[in-house]
């Protein structure tokens, strides 16, 4: 399992390196793009994911000490918190779609250069207009934002699917009879996703907030 996670480090590492170079290059645009994200949603999601990592760790402990009910409860809570995370992500993504800030799918430079052009949205968010070249470069920020959080969300969806399967097997007592490797390995995967988010949160949401 560790070897798989190490390949995942390289996979996400490529995205982080791309982020690092472009951020260095187009720093003001990255600041402007980052300030379009709502730090409250990001913080809440970080807390949700950390607590879900904790419930997953408790699940591994329950499997090791053969507590069937505790294991089912821990896995179910982890499952639920995973869904909460994705729900919050959906709220954030739909705001970006509403504001035409999704590169390659639903993107409009105009909304950055002249945010007041859409009165309904302007009333809600009061975005400051950006110069044209900076507005162009925010497209790179949002491309990376969607690539990175999207790949992260995909990992979450896969994880939640496996969790659903594990809850069924845990109810039948499959992991509480001495064979805990599957639960342990899944725990490693889940904590890995948590770590990726810890970095994504610091890098995407918390640029130059002061």
């Amino acid at each position, binding site marked *: 399992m560790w070897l798989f996670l190490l390949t995942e480090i390289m996979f996400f590492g490529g995205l982080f390196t791309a982020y690092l170079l472009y951020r260095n290059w187009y720093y003001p645009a990255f600041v402007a793009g980052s300030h379009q994200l709502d730090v409250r949603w990001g913080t809440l999601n970080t807390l949700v994911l950390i607590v879900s990592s*904790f419930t*997953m760790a408790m699940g591994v*402990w329950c499997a090791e000490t053969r507590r069937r009910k505790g294991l089912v409860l821990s896995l179910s809570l982890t499952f639920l918190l995973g869904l909460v995370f994705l729900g919050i992500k959906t709220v954030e993504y739909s705001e970006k779609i509403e504001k035409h800030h999704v590169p390659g799918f639903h993107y409009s430079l105009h909304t950055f250069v002249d945010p007041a052009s859409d009165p309904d949205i302007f009333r809600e968010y009061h975005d400051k207009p950006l110069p044209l070249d900076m507005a162009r470069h925010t497209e790179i920020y949002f491309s990376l934002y969607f690539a990175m959080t999207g790949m992260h969300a995909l990992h979450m969806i896969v994880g939640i699917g496996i969790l659903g399967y594990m809850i069924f097997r845990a109810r039948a007592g499959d992991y509480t009879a001495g064979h805990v490797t599957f639960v342990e390995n899944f725990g490693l995967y889940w*904590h890995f996703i948590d*770590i990726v988010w810890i970095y994504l949160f610091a890098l995407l949401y918390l640029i130059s907030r002061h």
Partner: protein
Amino acid sequence: MSEAKEHTHPIVGPKVYVVILFALLAGTALTVWASFVDLGVWHPTPNLPISWNPIVALAIATTKAVLVVLYFMHVKYSTKLTKLSIGAAIFMFVSLIGMTLADYISRAWGSW
């Protein structure tokens, strides 16, 4: 598969997990707070301003990641082989980023 083979590390208990949970929550609060404070700029040479904010944010994120790896992922209690593999991967990852950045900063940007 025998049970003894599956348990290569001692069982980590809920007490440790609760402590780590609160440390991670505190770290999150700290990093959000720190991002709203201007931590100033460091000038190692006059032409090279280095802002403290991203360094602090990454330091806190790395501390949190290390806590997760050591305790939630049981690496602290794992075999030398596991520790060595992870260390090698991190070293490789840092080398690759380092080489990319070495290429990036040593180019004559804008002078062709």
